[in-house]
């Protein structure tokens, strides 16, 4: 077992454990903080795969923006931070079965993939992953259309937010 695999197993255990804590803890702010641990673990996984851009963006967007927004929303809307209701509803067994089936199905599909057990290698020297990603996002034969559609969508969301919050006097 290489040191990469050991790190991967540790990070995977941390992600699973903290994700479990997100849904089981009663305190809402604690749940948000555990969620941050989960998201950070995913960022570490990206870093292990040599995807430094995705790792940093994961931290900037999910921890820097979304998780902090969660905490703000919880603190500003709730007087009581503790959730006292029952944590399971009557359909818990159904969702458990669906989750297990999805997991089993994913494992079954990935078993047939030849690179399933391969370790990530280092990039050859001079390989500019960020530059390639940037070119792909604006090149007409790659992802320029999804990229532009996403930016129009975000702009629409921005306009909508301004309209909702605008104070007409």
């Amino acid at each position, binding site marked *: 077992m*290489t*040191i990469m695999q050991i790190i991967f197993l540790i990070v995977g255990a941390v992600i699973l454990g903290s994700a479990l804590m997100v849904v089981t803890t009663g305190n809402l*702010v*604690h749940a948000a*903080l555990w969620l*941050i641990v989960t998201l950070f673990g995913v960022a570490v996984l990206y870093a292990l795969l040599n995807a*430094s*851009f995705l790792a*940093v*963006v994961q*931290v*900037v967007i999910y*921890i*820097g*923006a979304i*998780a*902090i927004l969660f*905490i*703000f929303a919880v*603190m500003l809307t709730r007087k009581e931070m503790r959730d006292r209701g029952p944590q399971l509803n009557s359909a818990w067994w159904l969702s458990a079965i669906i989750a297990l089936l999805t997991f089993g199905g994913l494992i079954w599909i990935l078993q047939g993939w030849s690179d399933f057990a391969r370790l990530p290698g280092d990039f050859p020297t001079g390989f*500019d*992953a*960020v530059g390639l990603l940037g070119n792909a996002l604006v090149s007409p034969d790659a992802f320029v259309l999804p990229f532009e559609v996403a930016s129009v969508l975000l702009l629409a969301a921005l306009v909508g937010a301004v309209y909702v919050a605008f104070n007409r006097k």
Partner: protein
Amino acid sequence: MNLWTDPVNFISHWLMSLLTGWGIAEWLANFLIQLIGVVVLVSMMMLIDILLVWVERKVVARFQDRLGPNRVGPFGIIQPFADIIKLLIKEDITPDGADRVVYNLAPILSLMSVLLLWAIVPLAPVIFGVDLNVGALYIIATGAIGALSIIMAAWSSNNKYALIGAFRQVAVMVSFEVPMIATMLIPTILAGSMSMGAIVQSQNVWYVVIAPLAAIIFMITAIAELGRAPFDMNEAESEIVAGFHIEYTGMKFGLFYAGELMHAFTFGGFWAILFFGGYRLFGLENLGPLVAAVILLAKALLGYWVIMWVKYTMMRIRIDNMLSFSWKFLTPLAFVILMATALMNAILRSVSSGVYIAGMFLMNLVIGLVVIEIVRRQGKRSRARVEEPIHRAVAHP
């Protein structure tokens, strides 16, 4: 390869042969060497941090026409050590109803978010933690962890002043992050890379000449990000006592304080790296990596001095003015400069470097003059609006 031209590699090779000679497996030896490197870098930064306490107190004293610490040691330089001993032996109080784990984790995260920044600082061409190809984004990412530590500290202290302080500070950090990202993109465009090492390498002419407005905006947003005066809403003493660290005592407060000083010094360093040529100074850096590191640290100290200069001469700005300053002034300006720089960079790519520099500088000058004119007219108009009723009252009594 010798100790003078490549000290880090020289020492790590020597350690490698030593450790493998002892019969330690190669991957473990490699891991240990990396660990030693991290510990050495962090310890060096913490040592500098102790001296920064003295620097800060001496400089603020001069700004306020005092002498500052001058009793313990020559020029009072031993004073910070006495302060540390005092902080360590103070009673450690955890408030009633505090969330213990989060409360104790927050100061650690706060200092950590600053020390993480030094991983990407190129002290010299061959002395750096890691040359990330997404360096500029990494600075923003560690800032996110800093904001998180402030929220954690405030919420877990179970104190309303702390929470108000954190809300204000995070609102400021989130708003000023936008112009900061836009200005950090300008050196990225000019260098063609987000890596700090490549940005320094490509500065044959310091970027402060090519993009002076961006350098100024970066400094303003950095001060806001630090939460220092004139943007110190987080700890406005007269309104919310001390803000997010109100309940912290002894060394836990010390960690926040050390983190703040280190953060200011670090942003002085990034100002130097992005706009003032980093470790480069008229070829002096070629003498050796240690000289280059000294040059960078001296430039970082100069940047830190500018931050202190602003802090101790400006008064605090009201929060609504601060946020509208960011959203209505800095953000549009930063984006205009970003677009203009990208355009001019593409147009002037093929001409000689003299014309290129002059064109870039002129473009910044024009944008700056136009902005000043617009702001002047806006100010006049808003002043006229405020003064109008008074005029009428005088004219028709």
